[in-house]
């Protein structure tokens, strides 16, 4: 849901960008690179104004206005000085980089706790999934905008704009000031682009100096996709094409990631795709008669592109090693019930000695509730010749049963296999099929309802009649109700999750209690029922234990963990060659009570019921009690928990941290013992990609998140509202805008801050070089971190009697010049700290310094290997270890809210003695004693 709607929302937001690019690129036939700068400018101006307390809607419009002005500049340069348009765009874009930095005053402005257009929309949300809600609001607004845009292109001025792009000689002869028209068009285009930027900043929760990088090609890709769908024959089609192009492009990106395309390859694939389509559409233009092929060829390209994305993982899997066993797992959708079944099954398999990627290959496929896709998946899985199929849900079971006759099948989380036509009884069925099933325990549930609610009870039920499992459960419930005259039944059927809210509202006035049988569609929208029930003070009796904390009053049903465990044991038997294994029923029922809801409703729970509870929620905390019926030890009940290790980019510091984290989590097989699985996700330094990855993390319900670096922290913090999250390798989380203070932080968020020990470094410089006067420093003004370090260095320099000579750069290519100019200014010591831009060229700076005999000191111990004179800094391996330690505490049951954020700087001093000798510098003994390696 998050991934899908997140992608579509991005697409909607980027529609303005796409329209802007289309305006210049297609209508004016002019590739305007300014957009990369104006996109950021829009985000920057909007963010700064919001920060100043201006209303976000107004702020967004000002952002757009700023973009328009920058476009005007490009237009004027292009027309007045007759400079090639591409060049004019590059000139303005380059200049905008500095302007953007000036506007923002730093490289990143967090907007998380501020009122933005997005937060306003979220406040109006009636309880729908927030991405879906956003989509519902954005879609009509943007459709309306596109309608007016198309209309505009048909007005007199719109016609003139189009004609200007089409034939300049002609419009000039008809009294149109071509230059003015161009300036106007480029301004409007950049205004739209900046509007997109402003919206994106609010949507992702921060404005960043790098947010415009690559938007031109991405926008162009959307334009091209749009044109491939509808040729530019009519304005309406063209505009609709742009709209679709923007959505489809984002969906394709999401799909590619979802399928497992390495994010590193994403830009390459996009670039290749754009190139191929442009070449083909040009060829088509020179042969205008092949109209049907005109549509066909781009379509084929898109198809091939998508196919390529699909095929890539297969090719990859072809090269990886063979496994002893292949287990194919098919889920109908990603609903909690099914995912829990799957996870607990994999966990149990692990305990039984089947380790994924080692001796076993587990292929999990989800059909996203799409029957067509379900069949495709099964076909696809058959190709890899699995040893056993595991089908989770009735739909998956039925589909596999129909298609697979020669491979064993184990089903789980099925209400009743017999109504699916699989066998006649637990022992009479085809020998290649077995599984575990059970339906809604209606009798037990109604017993509990009777004990708690008195008199005649009107129970309300919402279900999807399209789900076989559910219909079976409903029938069981109705049969049971027939025996009990004190109950009345009110039901509403739905066909999708979106209708649940309406159904709940409809029922609420007629019933005393919701009694919910298992239904994967309805439970997807459980929060809508919960919010309705809360408003109307109606208790919810639900069959899904996972929904206890989310507002259920009583939960009574089977646990799907149990379903998974039993399925795993059946798989084990099947793999050992057993056939004709009898079907099993679930071995365990679970009762959960939410005392917080009970209090709200003012309902007293009889002691007899309370005593039987396995899970109780009180004051927001969940307590588990040993289950008498349980035949298995408690440890086996915990499902496989997943940890996302999220990085924004790669560099020596971040990689060292990540290594520390991984080593610590794997120490003494902690991960295996506690059943955690760690997935590394890396955004390759791309803002939008980071956003999508974060959506993926939340969407696939990781249990824990650990982030390395400030940007990674920000990206996650903006979207995450509940998953326990530990951050590290962050200079200052308060500055980053994610927490109010080290004590006051969101209940799921904690971590460690590691500021560079700038002050101690300068102090040590003083003791090593008593007569030194001038310290040279190079830093990138766009890095928040460098700014922070430089500020500290300025202060410390004054305290220790140094003069700090600063040279600023905006990218890595400028560092060399900056360093050389420092050398010519006769510095005594060279210093760089915490600057991601400088980091990659530290070895060459070190070389230069060696040549000029200037001691070079940094704040990263790893730099000693790069040839610096000395380094005082945090050991990032230790930082990673410490952060992982925090995460371990969370995994072991501690709450993030109870762990305060801490400053942790494991200082390490390294001195390069050889260099000291070469330079003829005597290091005081007190310092040498401090140094850990010499």
């Amino acid at each position, binding site marked *: 849901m998050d991934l899908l709607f997140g992608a579509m929302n991005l697409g909607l937001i980027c529609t303005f960008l796409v329209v802007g690019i289309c305006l210049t690129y297609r209508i004016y036939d002019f590739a305007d690179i300014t957009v990369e700068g104006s996109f950021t400018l829009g985000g920057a101006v909007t963010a700064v104004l919001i920060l100043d307390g201006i209303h976000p809607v107004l702020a967004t419009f000002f952002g757009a206005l700023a973009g328009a002005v920058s476009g005007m500049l490009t237009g004027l340069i292009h027309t007045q000085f007759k400079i090639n348009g591409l060049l004019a765009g590059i000139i303005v874009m380059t200049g905008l980089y500095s302007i953007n930095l000036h506007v923002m005053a730093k490289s990143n402005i967090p907007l998380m706790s501020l009122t933005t257009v997005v937060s306003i929309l979220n406040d109006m949300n009636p309880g729908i999934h927030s991405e879906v809600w956003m989509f519902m609001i954005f879609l009509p607004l943007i459709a309306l905008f596109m309608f007016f845009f198309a209309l505009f292109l048909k007005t*007199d001025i719109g016609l003139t704009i*189009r004609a200007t792009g089409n034939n300049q*000689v002609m*419009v000039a002869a008809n*009294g149109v000031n*071509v230059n003015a028209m161009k300036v106007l068009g480029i301004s409007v285009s950049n205004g739209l682009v900046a509007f997109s930027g402003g919206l994106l900043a609010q949507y992702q929760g921060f404005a960043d100096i790098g947010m415009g990088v690559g938007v031109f090609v991405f926008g162009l890709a959307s334009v091209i996709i749009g044109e491939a769908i509808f040729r530019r*024959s009519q304005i309406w089609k063209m505009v609709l094409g742009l709209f679709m192009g923007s959505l489809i492009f984002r969906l394709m990106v999401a799909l590619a990631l979802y399928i497992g395309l390495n994010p590193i390859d994403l830009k390459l694939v996009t670039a290749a795709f754009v190139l191929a389509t442009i070449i083909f559409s040009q060829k088509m233009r020179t042969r205008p008669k092949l109209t049907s092929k005109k549509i066909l060829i781009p379509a084929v390209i898109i198809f091939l592109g998508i196919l390529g994305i699909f095929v890539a993982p297969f090719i990859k899997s072809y090269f990886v090693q063979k496994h002893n066993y292949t287990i194919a797992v098919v889920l109908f959708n990603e609903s909690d019930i099914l995912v829990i079944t799957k996870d607990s099954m994999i966990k149990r398999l692990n305990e039984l000695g089947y380790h994924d990627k080692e001796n076993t290959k587990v292929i999990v496929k989800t059909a996203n509730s799409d029957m067509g896709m379900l069949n495709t998946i099964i076909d696809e899985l058959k190709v890899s010749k699995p040893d056993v199929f595991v089908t989770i849900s009735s739909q998956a079971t039925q589909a596999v049963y129909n298609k697979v006759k020669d491979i064993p099948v184990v089903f789980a989380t099925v209400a009743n296999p017999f109504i699916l036509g699989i066998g006649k009884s637990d022992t009479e069925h085809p020998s290649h099929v077995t599984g575990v099933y059970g339906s809604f325990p209606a009798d037990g549930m109604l017993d509990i309802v009777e004990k708690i609610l008195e008199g005649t009870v009107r129970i309300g039920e919402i279900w999807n009649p399209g789900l076989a499992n559910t219909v079976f459960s409903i029938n069981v419930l109705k049969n049971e109700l027939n025996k009990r005259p004190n109950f009345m039944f009110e039901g509403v059927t739905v066909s999708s999750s979106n209708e649940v809210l309406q159904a709940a509202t409809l029922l609420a006035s007629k019933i005393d209690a919701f009694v919910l049988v298992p239904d994967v569609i309805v439970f997807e929208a459980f929060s809508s029922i919960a919010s309705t029930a809360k408003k109307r003070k109606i208790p919810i009796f639900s069959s899904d234990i996972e929904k206890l904390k989310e507002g259920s009053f009583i939960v009574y049903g089977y646990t799907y963990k149990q379903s998974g465990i039993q399925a795993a044991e059946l798989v084990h038997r099947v793999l050992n060659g057993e056939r004709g294994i009898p079907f099993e029923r679930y071995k365990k029922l679970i009762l959960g009570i939410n005392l917080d809801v009970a209090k709200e409703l003012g309902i007293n729970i009889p002691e007899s019921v309370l005593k039987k509870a396995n899970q109780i929620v009180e004051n927001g905390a969940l307590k588990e009690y040993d289950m008498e019926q349980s035949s298995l030890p408690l440890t086996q009940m915990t499902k496989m928990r997943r940890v996302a290790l999220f990085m924004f980019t790669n560099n020596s510091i971040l990689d060292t941290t990540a290594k520390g984290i991984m080593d610590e989590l794997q120490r003494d097989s902690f991960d295996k013992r506690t059943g955690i699985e760690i997935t590394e996700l890396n955004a390759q330094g791309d803002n939008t990609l980071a956003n999508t990855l974060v959506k993926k993390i939340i969407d696939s319900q990781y249990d824990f998140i650990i982030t390395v670096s400030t940007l990674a922290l920000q990206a996650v913090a903006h979207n995450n509202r509940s998953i326990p999250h530990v951050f590290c390798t962050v200079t200052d989380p308060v500055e980053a805008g994610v927490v109010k203070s080290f004590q006051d932080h969101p209940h799921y968020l904690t971590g460690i801050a590691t500021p560079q020990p700038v002050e101690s470094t300068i102090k040590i410089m003083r003791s090593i070089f008593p007569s030194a006067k001038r310290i040279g420093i190079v830093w990138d003004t766009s890095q928040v971190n460098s700014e922070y370090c430089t500020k500290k260095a300025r202060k410390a320099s004054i305290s220790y009697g140094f003069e700090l000579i600063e040279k600023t750069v905006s990218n890595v290519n400028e560092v060399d010049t900056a360093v050389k100019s420092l050398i010519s200014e006769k510095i005594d010591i060279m210093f760089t700290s915490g600057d991601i831009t400088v980091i990659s060229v530290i070895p060459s700076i070190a070389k230069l310094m060696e040549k000029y005999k200037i001691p070079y000191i940094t704040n990263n111990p790893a730099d000693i290997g790069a040839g610096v004179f000395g380094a005082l800094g945090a050991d990032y391996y230790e930082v990673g270890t410490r952060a992982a330690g925090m995460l371990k505490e969370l995994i072991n049951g501690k709450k993030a809210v109870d762990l305060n954020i801490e400053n942790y700087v494991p200082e390490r001093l390294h001195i390069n003695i050889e260099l000291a000798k070469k330079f003829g510098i005597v290091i005081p003994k007190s310092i040498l004693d401090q140094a850990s390696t010499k």
Partner: protein
Amino acid sequence: MIHIENVSKYFDKGTSNELLALDNINLEIADGEFVTIIGTNGSGKTTLLNMIAGTIYPDEGRIVLNNTDITKYPDYKRASYVSRVFQNPFSGTAPDMTIAENLMIAYKRGKIKLPIIGLNRQVYSFFQKEIIKLEMQLENRLDTMIGRLSGGQRQAITLLMSVLIKPDILLLDEHTAALDPKTGGQVLKLTKEFIERDKLTTIMITHSMQQALELGTKTIMMYKGRIIDVLHEHEKQTLTTDDLLDKFADLRKKEKLTDEILDELRKEYL
């Protein structure tokens, strides 16, 4: 009424390629007059027309239209008085827009364009009525992209566009030269009709002596940036080939032309 006074134009002035494209041109055209221009390749005909249209500016001299000095007006400002048809049939229309949309651009020639949909039903049916006059069966194809039409059709539409709103002066630069004889003839016929209907002040460049003599009230001969002769209506009607030869002989004396040039002129026009 248009006055061209002492206009000169250099190209690439100050370089080794310096070229005097117009050499002290003086010309007066009264309202309703139809002037044809003939002259060898590179004699400056197009340059003269561009000068009037405002796409290039004179180095010396001035241009006065209806008592207003328009010498410094840019082309888009002059467009409310001047309209033109180019030699290239593709220059006058926007290929990716429909016939109606192109006509709309011409309909708004020299006027302010507002964000309103001016192409309403009334205007549309007006266009339909006008386009019937082209006799090219285009009246039901107003929504076709111009790019799909033939060069002749496009040139006819450009002509229609240039007279859709009556211009003070109409400039035609060999506008039938790139068309096949039949379509060229049709476009020429239309040209005559429109000029007569609206009594348009017109300047037409042509390479056909016959056209030059048959059409218009006055014929101008150009050579190397100069107007070397003007034939008035009464002369034109009685002019024969022999007369023309005599004329050339006269010219030789007057303009000190060499025999070579006369040969060139003869070859070109006789």
